[in-house]
């Protein structure tokens, strides 16, 4: 008795727990005729669709995505299914955790516009990912509304009866066709309660079909071929949308001549787009007029002129059009090559493979030249010459003679001695001495072909006076008692005439005012003669006109100074 009571209680509890679900399902037998078909995905790998067709399958539904994960066999299957003349359909394994609209758009983009004979898209509802029935049905509703609006057909819902009853529990979708999975050998499936009939029945997941290796899902269409054709997408009344030449024809038969643009028919519909742009996506292009343009789904949204910065638009430089240097390519279609080039400024530049130009300096003093075999750097050479007061050197450097420091400042002269800078205090040719009273009464200079070496009179002979052919150093008190001829002769010896000449003293210190020497100062001889005039740093006694004796010390200094001055001049001039 006790056992019977317990058993009755258990039975009642079981009935209460399970009966509502069981009672909610409906056994619906098919019509008299059914048509066989399959559904496939990546799991079937490479399908021989000709064999599938020959096996008598009338339709195939293929997976486009699992949520946002693309089925990599879809494109092949979709194309081949159509090529074999089957009714083709698409399903998306729906995940409520992902945005329904984003999922739907991915599927819609992959399948493109539905063609007459295609089956309506399918939402595969068999995953909850923790979503409540309210959340799941809301997500399904969003997906369905979006796809129905985009395609104009009512999507099919794939869902098992137990899954629907346990996880969706909604009556809101009964107007949509049902694809019912139930693996059984029974002749009549049992479907979820909102529906009173089914359109497709997936009756096996272990089917074998010629052309497919491994198992495949088998399906039945509840009706005959005519019913299936009637269920599929119908040819559009009116006009078939498409491009007729360069004219876009809409389903409403509205026509638009694309004129300078071009007509395309793609997932965004039939429309005119800019002739420079691809139909889909964003891209940078070169327009017919050579501008750099931004395309967005066939529309040219903005342009910029590469020539404003000395460039041109190139479609060959990179995957996207870009501005490149006009020095690097000859036309917008020419592919830039990485190379060095010479430009008119004599400098070397580098063109990158992307058509960008950058300065690539030659080594110092070098210039860029190109004899047709490529840009090379070579040493720069110039004819030595005067350009006004500028002395142009052999390496093409320029010296401003007027801007040389101190006593060296002068002008550029060009004569038998060649182009060179000559001090303003010196005659351009010959060797002579000049007084430089503006510096000090004892200051003087030794001129050699315009080059001036500073000197000064010795202590006791503090006044430099000009005399014919040169200068003399005189004592302040007895200027006429102690004089030394400062004019160096051709052999470096002092001249005979030691008399001072007030007239000869340059009043302004300009070398040209004094007479030019009659010989050149060369080697140590001339320098030695000039040295006689100079005050030794160590010997502050009187003037030493004698090359011998203690003159040897400061003679060496003067020789060195003169040699340094000449060397510097030569260095500047070469």
């Amino acid at each position: 008795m006790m056992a019977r009571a317990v058993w009755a209680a258990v039975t009642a509890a079981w009935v209460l727990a399970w009966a509502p679900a069981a009672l909610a399902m409906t056994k619906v037998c098919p019509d008299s005729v059914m048509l066989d078909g399959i559904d496939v995905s990546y799991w079937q790998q490479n399908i021989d669709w000709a064999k599938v067709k020959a096996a008598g399958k009338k339709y195939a539904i293929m997976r486009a995505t699992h949520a946002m994960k693309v089925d990599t066999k879809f494109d092949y299957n979709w194309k081949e299914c159509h090529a074999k003349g089957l009714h083709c359909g698409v399903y998306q394994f729906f995940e409520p955790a992902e945005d329904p609209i984003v999922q739907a758009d991915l599927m819609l983009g992959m399948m493109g516009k539905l063609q007459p004979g295609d089956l309506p898209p399918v939402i595969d509802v068999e995953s909850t990912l923790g979503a409540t029935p309210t959340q799941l049905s809301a997500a399904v509703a969003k997906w369905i509304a979006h796809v129905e609006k985009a395609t104009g057909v009512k999507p099919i819902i794939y869902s098992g009866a137990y899954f629907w009853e346990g996880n969706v529990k909604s009556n809101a979708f009964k107007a949509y066709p049902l694809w019912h999975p139930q693996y059984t050998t029974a002749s009549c499936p049992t479907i979820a309660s909102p529906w009173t009939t089914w359109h497709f029945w997936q009756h096996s997941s272990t089917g074998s079909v010629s052309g497919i290796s491994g198992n495949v899902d088998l399906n039945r269409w509840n009706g005959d071929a005519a019913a299936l054709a009637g269920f599929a997408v119908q040819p559009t009344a009116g006009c078939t949308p498409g491009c007729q030449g360069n004219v876009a024809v809409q389903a409403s038969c509205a026509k638009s001549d694309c004129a300078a643009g071009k007509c395309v028919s793609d997932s965004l519909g039939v429309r005119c787009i800019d002739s420079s742009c691809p139909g889909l996506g964003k891209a940078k292009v070169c327009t017919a007029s050579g501008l750099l343009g931004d395309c967005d789904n066939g529309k040219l949204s903005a342009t910029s002129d590469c020539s404003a910065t000395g460039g041109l638009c190139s479609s060959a430089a990179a995957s996207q059009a870009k501005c490149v240097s006009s020095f690097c390519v000859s036309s917008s279609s020419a592919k830039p090559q990485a190379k060095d080039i010479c430009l008119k400024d004599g400098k070397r530049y580098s063109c990158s493979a992307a058509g960008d130009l950058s300065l690539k300096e030659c080594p110092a003093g070098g210039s860029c030249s190109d004899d047709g075999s490529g840009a090379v750097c070579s040493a720069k050479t110039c004819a030595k010459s005067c350009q006004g007061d500028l002395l142009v050197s052999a390496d093409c450097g320029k010296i401003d003679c007027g801007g040389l420091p101190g006593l060296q400042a002068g002008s550029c002269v060009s004569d038998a001695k060649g182009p060179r800078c000559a001090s303003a205090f010196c005659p351009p040719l010959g060797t002579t001495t000049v007084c430089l009273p503006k510096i000090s009464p004892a200051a003087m200079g030794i001129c050699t072909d315009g080059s001036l070496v500073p000197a000064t009179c010795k202590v006791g002979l503090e006044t430099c006076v000009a005399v014919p052919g040169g200068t003399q150093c005189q004592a302040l008190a007895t200027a006429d008692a102690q004089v030394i001829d400062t004019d160096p002769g051709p052999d470096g010896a002092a001249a005979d005439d030691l008399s001072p000449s007030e007239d000869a003293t340059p009043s302004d210190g300009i070398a040209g005012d004094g007479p030019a020497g009659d010989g050149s100062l060369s080697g140590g001889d001339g320098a030695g003669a000039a040295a006689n005039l100079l005050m030794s740093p160590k010997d502050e006694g009187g003037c030493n006109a004698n090359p011998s004796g203690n003159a040897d010390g400061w003679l060496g200094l003067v020789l060195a100074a003169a040699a340094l001055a000449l060397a510097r001049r030569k260095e500047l001039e070469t």
Partner: protein
Amino acid sequence: MAQTRGGFAGTLAAAWALATIATGASAEARAPQRPAKTLTWPQLLQRSDAVALVEIGRPVAKQTKLTVGVGSDFVRHQRHMTVVALAQGSALRGRGLRAGQQILVDDVDWQGDMLHHQRCQELKKAKGQAEVCPALADKDGLASQLSREPGSGQQVVVALKKVNGDWQLAAERAMDTAQTWPMLQRLARSGR
């Protein structure tokens, strides 16, 4: 256990090395040059670090995002994985795997998905119209008894390989029905 694992790993490594030497490349590298092989379970065992009876959990997108392309045209991809829970103390040879443990396993063809999507988008953009994308080179896979990806809650047998700390399927479609499990246990015991 460690010794068993070490011995198995050594055998695996040797088998893999031999396979690599014989073909001159890894399976992934040589995939484009030859059609995919349909593998038997003994062959797949040789490639596996673990074989387990698992219950399929929820799919996840691993937070490591893979970005392909530049500018406004880039395509974002996430690494698709699935949580699987080991059932009934079911791991063969898998180090550290135990009953009830949940692990992340790469989805079938997630890498192919990324490459395919990228290539397809590029083609579409280049030609300005919808294009049928080229099929990816096939990779070796088990002659699976599954006709479709297993659903949440379904028990299946999986062959796994550990790569850089992540579990991946040891081959494409390296899944089979739970009914295969006793046979695999016998196979493992026999040392094949």
